[in-house]
Structure formats: structure tokens, C-alpha cells
């Protein structure tokens, strides 16, 4: 049973560039959420995708956008990178309709460094 996978593992970009991170959910899951974890802090919710639409969004600017594909995989795009965007980006998958017991399973993360 394949777990949540993310690519790439590490990424180095410079300020002003754009980046795309990818996530494949756990087998049988149809919902993908993205979190940003700055060094020394807990993860912060960015947004969630279900049925190829953004369903929930945290307190992140429009520079952060995403997409979900028919096979449930997802991309996170960040435009006009800032130094403060350096973080571990975590993808989590879950099964819709599990409200109240919406256990999320996390991928290994993509570590983004912005120089």
C-alpha cells in the first residue's frame, strides 16, 4: 500500500523565481492538503483540494496556488519567491466524507530553500 509521496526532496531557488511541488496521495485517498513548516515551528495549513477544486484555505497570500488532477495527485505553486518562503512543505492526504475522523497521512516533505 503506497503512502503519500512528494517530489522533489530538496529544492534551491532564488528570490523572485517560481516553484512547483508535487504530491501523490495515499492509495484510496481523494483529498490533498498542503502545509508549510518553517524551521522550529509546527506546520501551518495552506489549502486543501478535493474534486479538483480548492475547498479550504489558510492564511496564505495568492502567490500560493495549487491544482489537483483527476488521479487525485496535486501540485503546489509558489510565485515570486521570498526568503521567508524557505520551509519544509508537507502534503497530507485523506479520504473525503470522514468529517470528524479525518485522519490525515503526511508525506516526507519537500525542503525548499530560497536564496
Amino acid at each position, binding site marked *: 500500500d503506497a503512502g503519500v509521496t512528494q517530489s522533489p526532496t530538496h529544492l534551491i531557488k532564488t528570490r523572485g523565481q517560481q516553484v512547483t511541488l508535487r504530491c501523490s496521495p495515499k492509495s484510496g485517498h481523494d483529498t490533498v492538503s498542503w502545509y508549510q513548516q518553517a524551521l522550529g515551528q*509546527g*506546520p501551518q*495549513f495552506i489549502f*486543501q483540494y478535493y474534486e479538483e477544486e480548492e*475547498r479550504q484555505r*489558510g492564511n496564505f497570500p495568492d502567490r500560493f496556488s495549487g491544482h489537483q488532477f483527476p488521479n487525485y495527485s496535486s501540485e503546489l505553486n509558489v510565485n515570486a519567491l521570498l526568503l521567508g518562503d524557505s520551509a519544509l512543505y508537507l502534503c497530507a492526504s485523506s479520504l473525503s466524507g470522514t*468529517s470528524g475522523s479525518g485522519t490525515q497521512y503526511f508525506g*516526507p*516533505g519537500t525542503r525548499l530553500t530560497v536564496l
Partner: protein
Amino acid sequence: GIQVEQSPPDLILQEGANSTLRCNFSDSVNNLQWFHQNPWGQLINLFYIPSGTKQNGRLSATTVATERYSLLYISSSQTTDSGVYFCAVPHFNYGQNFVFGPGTRLSVLP
């Protein structure tokens, strides 16, 4: 929005010792999870525990929802228990997506 606090922020133990980690949250919840983040960054689900007590090997967790706190117990700690422990609860604006506490960093020494 809901606030999540964890204590202590840092904990250093000798192998074999027991420990208790605490999570306080500011509003009623229908979901609470404990995670362990290993040194490589992987978040591992430990417990889904909105109320009551659960045990899994050397780990157990108790949530007292009416008093808005949860406890994670680690017995006979091992060096592989090192890492950061997070509790997480849903934010009502985020559906079932989580607000994480700041974590407890545990170091178990051989």
C-alpha cells in the same frame, strides 16, 4: 481561531525513563491527533484521540475534551523516540484541516 499550546517545549531523558507531554487547546474539538516528527521531517501518526484513552505499545494518550487538554505518555523511552511531538486539532475555518501546536522536542540519550 483555536489556540494550541504544548508543554514542555524541550525534554531530555535518559533511555528507559518515562515522560508525559501535554497539549492544551482553547475550544471544543471533534478531532485531535498526536504526531511524531522524526529527524528527517517525516510526520508519523501516533493517535487519533478526540476523547478517552488509547494505548499502542509503550505509548498511550488521554484526551479530556471537557477540560480541553490531551496527554501523551511515553514509557521506557528509547533513542528512536527522539524527535518532535505535535498535537493537532481542526480549525473551524479549515474544515478538518489542522492547527498544530508548537511541539515538544524530545531527546532520549543512550
